[in-house]
């Protein structure tokens, strides 16, 4: 039977030390649940830097081009108007007046696009069920999830290795087949 270990620590540094120790013994840590970001955990358990910032830049560029195109279409191509004699005959002439809206719209698209991507990638959306193994992990406890199916060690060896670290609590459950 496949097992899942939920190893609880009462301090972020204890978890970090323990994770380093276990990983150095070739144990794979599936997931870490914590109430706040633990700085330095990502490289230890093999999490790469997110590419969210790149998406934000792409959303900003799309917003910028959309805004400039739209202003060119309405103000210059579709229905040019003489408003106080301001230049309205070519995009270049009129461009200074278009800067504020271009900027605002780029920021608008960058921020909202990025947040939507973030929520979708996380799978955190309104009404989604919580998946943290213990309610205390959003308060002051830190949980590491280790499963037997991603590790070559058997359950007994894993358990004894885990118990060597400074744990607070350990729960072992059967892994549900998904």
């Amino acid at each position, binding site marked *: 039977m496949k097992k899942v270990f939920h190893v609880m620590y009462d301090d972020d540094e204890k978890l970090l030390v323990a994770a380093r120790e276990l990983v150095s013994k070739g144990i794979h840590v599936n997931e870490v649940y914590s109430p706040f970001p*633990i700085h330095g955990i990502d490289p230890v358990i093999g*999490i790469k830097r997110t590419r969210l910032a790149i998406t934000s830049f792409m959303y900003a560029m799309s917003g910028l081009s959309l805004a400039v195109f739209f*202003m060119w279409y309405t103000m210059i191509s579709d*229905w040019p108007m003489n408003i106080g004699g301001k230049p309205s005959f070519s995009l270049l002439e009129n461009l200074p007046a278009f800067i504020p809206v271009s900027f605002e*719209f780029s920021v*608008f698209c960058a921020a909202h696009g990025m*947040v939507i991507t973030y929520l979708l990638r996380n799978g955190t*959306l309104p009404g989604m069920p919580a998946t943290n193994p213990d309610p205390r992990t959003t308060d002051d406890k830190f949980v590491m999830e280790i499963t037997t199916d991603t590790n070559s060690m058997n359950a007994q060896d894993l358990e004894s290795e885990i118990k060597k670290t400074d744990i607070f609590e350990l729960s072992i459950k059967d892994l549900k087949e998904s």
Partner: protein
Amino acid sequence: MQKESAIREPLILGHKTYKDITDDVVRPIVGPASLGWKIMITISSIVALYGIGSILYLISTGIGVWGLNKTVGWAWDITNFVWWVGIGHAGTLISAVLLLFRQKWRMAINRSAEAMTIFAVIMAAVFPGIHMGRIWLAYYVFPLPNQFGSLWVNFNSPLLWDVFAISTYFSVSLVFWYVGLIPDFATIRDRVTKPFAKKMYGIMSFGWSGRAKHWNRFEELSLVLAGIATPLVFSVHSIVSMDFATSVIPGWHTTIFPPYFVSGAVFSGFAMVQTLLLVMRKAYKLEDYIHVKHVEYMNIVIIVTGSIVGVAYLTELFISWYSGVEYESYAFINRFSGPYKAAYWTMMTCNVISPQLFWFKKIRRSLVATFILSIVVNIGMWFERYVIIVTSLHRDYLPSSWGEFIPTATDVGIFIGTLGIFLTLFLAFTRFFPVLALNELKTILKSSGESYKNEQVK
């Protein structure tokens, strides 16, 4: 772990643990509402209802119920708009600019300051809306395809820039605030026991579980949002100032307006944060998290921005004389010696002279003095906008069309009403939302908490 100099004052007082932080912030949410809160929300909702009544009267009767006339076509409405937008500048400045500068003291105040920002911007948005007269045609400000020929909006107009600036600012501030709230809602969700509350916080927490990868994305998202929100903060009030600066009215047509408005906005925003937080920290027993050092930091921001505003006032006076333009110099002489001189001198006293008291460390660190001065600053900043708008308009180029503005009961009612709506929203926020960014605070406990600092000294 990041170390911090032991000489620096701790940001979290007392011997707190991670659990204490959760307990202290969640306690007012799970516990029953206090009597003080009930009294305050009753009063503020009555005031809010009076304001809503005044707005309905205005919409059903017409703009004529305001004290406007053909000379002074803009007065309290736009004064209130600019005032509220200005107040709405502190929240995003605190959470975005101070995040970029890695100022840890922001964490105690950013949540409530951002909530205040959002409510202030909502109040600001009321005024251009009701000022249109026919509010049911408000959608005309958006560039929508329509049946009236190709009647597009005018992208050359600063008033339209304002539409984009305010709506972007509002929506970006809102998501920035909410993204930070999600993990804290999850903490409350896992804490409350009442089924209805658990369900509600469960929905609002979006199923947040605190996975390492999610936190990794969270930090990147906060940083990038802070990066793009920073220029946004500066752009919004610059654009608001261009509503005036791009016109040809003496007293408005000045190039100094954008930086002068932005610093004035930060100035009044921080003053409002002080007013609200000094009460909130006491009422919710958060003195260990928002203490004298935080107040002092904010007072330093107030004195810097207040001094910039003071320099801007003097520069305006000097340039109007030095330019040699008669109309320009008349506009300013009329400001300080004309029929509205009382408003001008109130503005000068409240904005330029009184904040200078913060140079004294005793006053800067005194909570009572800060509370009084923060209200004085907000009064002064309201008068600043009033002075800029009304005194510039009431003396036209043609003496035959000179006029004066006298506010009516509806003017006053709507302004007081927005204060009521704002306070009602803020009080509701303090009751049901985590007023401190509790999970962010846990990250600085070990570097800036008092007990951890004491250990460092040993």
